[in-house]
C-alpha cells in the first residue's frame, strides 16, 4: 500500500463512482419495471453524449440548449426502442430478451461508428477545469498533512449523479407514475387488471433510462473525453447494480460507492500487477457477491415456485 496516496485515491474512487451509479440507475429503472436487463445501456450513453456534442459543437448551439435537445431526443429514442425492439419480446424466455438487447447493442454501436466515426472528440467543459478543490486531511505523512486534490469536473458529476438518484428515487416513491412503475414491477398481470397501462409504463421507463444514460454520458464525456469507447464504461456498471441489487435504487449508488472505493484502493497499491487490476476489481467483487448473496445487498430475493 502506498499510504501517502491512499486518501487521494480513495476520494477519487468515490467521486468517480457518481457517473457509474447513474449508469447503474438506468439499468435498474428498466429492470425494475419490466424485468429486462439492458445490455445496450452503454450505447444509449454513447449516443446521448454524441448527440449533445453534435448539437453544441457542430451546430454551435449554447450548451444548455444542446443538453436540453439531447435529453428530448433521448426520451423519444427510449420510447422508440421499447416500441420496436422490446415489445415483441413480451413473454419470451430470458435468453431471447438478453439477445435482443445485445442485438440493440450491436446496432447502436454500428450506427454510432457509421454516423460519427471513431475520432476522439473534445467535449465542451461543463465545469471549469482549473483551480481544483484542496482539502487538508488530518492524516500526517513525513511531517505534513496529506492534501487531497478534487478535480472540479469529478465533484460536479458526482453531485449531478447524486441529485439524479435522489430525483428518480423520489419519483418512484412519491408520484403516481412511480407507484404505477412499482406496481408493474411487482406483477405485470395484476397491474394490468387494476387498469394500469403497462405498455405506457414500459415505454416511460425506457424513456427515463435513456434520459439517465444521456446525463451519464455527458458527465463522463466532460471529464474524460468522448470517443466510441465510452460505451464500454458501462461494463463497470453491471457489477455495481448486481452488488446493490438489480431492483434497488439506493443499491445503485451504494454499490457504486463500494466498487469506486475498491478500485481507488487497488490503484493505490505499490505492486504493479495489483495496480493494473483496476478493470477487473469490479468483477472480482461481483463474483464474490454472486457466491455469497446473489440477489445483491438490497435486492429482493425471488423465491422460485415449483
Amino acid at each position, binding site marked *: 500500500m502506498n499510504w501517502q496516496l491512499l486518501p487521494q485515491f480513495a476520494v477519487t474512487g468515490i467521486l468517480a463512482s457518481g457517473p457509474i451509479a447513474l449508469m447503474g440507475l438506468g439499468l435498474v429503472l428498466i429492470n425494475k419495471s419490466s424485468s429486462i*436487463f439492458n445490455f445496450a445501456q452503454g450505447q444509449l450513453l454513447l449516443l446521448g453524449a454524441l448527440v449533445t456534442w453534435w448539437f453544441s459543437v457542430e451546430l454551435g448551439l449554447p450548451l444548455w440548449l444542446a443538453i436540453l435537445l439531447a435529453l428530448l431526443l433521448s426520451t423519444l429514442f427510449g420510447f422508440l426502442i421499447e416500441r420496436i425492439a422490446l415489445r415483441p419480446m413480451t413473454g419470451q424466455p430470458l*435468453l431471447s430478451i438478453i439477445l435482443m438487447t*445485445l442485438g440493440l*447493442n*450491436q*446496432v447502436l454501436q454500428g450506427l454510432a461508428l457509421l454516423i460519427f466515426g471513431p475520432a476522439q472528440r473534445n467535449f465542451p467543459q461543463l465545469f471549469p477545469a482549473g483551480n481544483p478543490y484542496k482539502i487538508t486531511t488530518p492524516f500526517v505523512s513525513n511531517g505534513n498533512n496529506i492534501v487531497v486534490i478534487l478535480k472540479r469536473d469529478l465533484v460536479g458529476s458526482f453531485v449531478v449523479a447524486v441529485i439524479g438518484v435522489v430525483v428518480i428515487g423520489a419519483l418512484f416513491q412519491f408520484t403516481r407514475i412511480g407507484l404505477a412503475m412499482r406496481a408493474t414491477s411487482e406483477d405485470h398481470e395484476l397491474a394490468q387488471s387494476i387498469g394500469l397501462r403497462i405498455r405506457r409504463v414500459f415505454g416511460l421507463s425506457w424513456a427515463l433510462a435513456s434520459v439517465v444514460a444521456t446525463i451519464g454520458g455527458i458527465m463522463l464525456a466532460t471529464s474524460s473525453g468522448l470517443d466510441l469507447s465510452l460505451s464500454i464504461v458501462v461494463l463497470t456498471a453491471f457489477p455495481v447494480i*448486481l452488488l446493490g441489487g438489480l431492483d434497488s435504487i439506493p443499491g445503485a449508488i451504494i454499490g457504486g460507492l463500494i466498487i469506486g472505493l475498491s478500485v481507488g484502493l487497488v490503484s493505490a497499491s505499490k505492486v504493479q500487477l495489483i495496480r493494473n487490476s483496476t478493470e477487473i476489481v469490479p468483477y472480482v467483487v*461481483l463474483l464474490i457477491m454472486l457466491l455469497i448473496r446473489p440477489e445483491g445487498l438490497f435486492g429482493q430475493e425471488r423465491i422460485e415456485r415449483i
Partner: protein
Amino acid sequence: MAVLRPAGELDESYAYDMATIRQRWQWVLLVAFVLALYGLPLYASQSFVSLVNRIGITLIAVQGLNLLVGYTGQISFGQAAFMTVGGYISALLVSTLGWSFFLALPVAALGTGIVGLIFGLPSLRIKGLYLVMSTLAAQIIIPWFTRHAFPSLLGGPQGVNVGVPELFGIVFNQPGRYIYITITLVILSTVVAHNVARSRLGRAFVAIRDNDLAAEIMGINLFRYKLFAFFLAAVYAGVAGSLAAHNLRHINSATFGLDDSIFLLGTLVVGGLGTSLGPILGTITVEYLTEAATRFGPLLVQIFPSMAGNVVHGLKPLFFGVALMLFLILEPRGLAHRWRLFKAAWRLRPFSHWQ
C-alpha cells in the same frame, strides 16, 4: 411435428429408427459433399477457401456454445474468452516447448475445458441473468490475465506469435493447406456434438434446460451434468481458439473479445438453438452477412464520401445486430426450424398446408 417418412420406409430395427443417415442416396450425397469439401483448394478461389476456413473455425466454437446454451440452457458470455485460453495454451506449447501442433491441440482443448469447469462452478448456485454475469466476469478476467500476468511468457498486450502446424514435412502455412485441418476437425466436432445431443448425456442436458428442479428430482445429477456442459463448451472453444490462433499466427488479448462472444451467441440464435443443424446454418449465414458488409461498405463510401474508413467496421455490427433482432422477432427458433418446416412441406406436397 411428427416425423414424416416416405411410404414403405419402415423402422424395422431400433438401430435403423435411430439412424441419422438412413438411405443409400444419403450416404452417396454425404460422401460426395465431404469429398467436395476436401477438394476445395483444387477448384475454388483462394478467398473462398479462406472464407470456408473461417466459417469452419467459428462453427466449432458455435457448436460448443450450442451444447451449453442450446441444450443445457445455461447462457454463457464467455465462449470467446475460452477461445483465448485455447489459443494461448496451444501457442505456448508449440513455440515455447516445441511441441507438435497436433499434440498441442488436444492438450489445449483439455486445458480450456478445465478453465471452463472453474467458471462453470457458479452455475450450481445461480442461474439466469446472474449466471450471465459470472460468465461475463470470465470474459473480462481472462483477457486481463493474458494482458498483465506473466509478461515474459504471455507477452503482455502484444501477445505471442504462434507457430505454423507441420506434419510429416507438410507445412500448413496457407489457407489452401490449413483447410484440411479445419475440415477434419469440423467433421469430428459435428459428429460428436450430434451424438452427444441424442445420447443419455444430451437428454440430461435437455431435461436440465427445461426444468432443472424437475430434472434433479428425476435423478439427474445437476452438479455433474451442468459442469460437464461447461466443460464440453470450453473444450470446443479451446479447439476453435487453437485453430484460429495457428491460422492467424498471432494471438493477443484482443483477438477474441466480448463482441466475439456476443457474435457467437447471436450466430447460434440465427441458426436455431438446440439443434444440430442450427450452428451450421447460423455460422454460414452470419459469416456471409459479414462478407456482405465488407462488399457493401465501399459502395456506401461512394455515396457518402465523408464516412470513409469506418464504414466496414460500422456495417458489420449493424448488419449482425439487425439480423439478430429480426430473427428474434420473426423466427426465434432460427433457420433450422425453417428448414424443418420446408422439409415437411416438401414431403407433403401438393398438400403442404396440411402440416
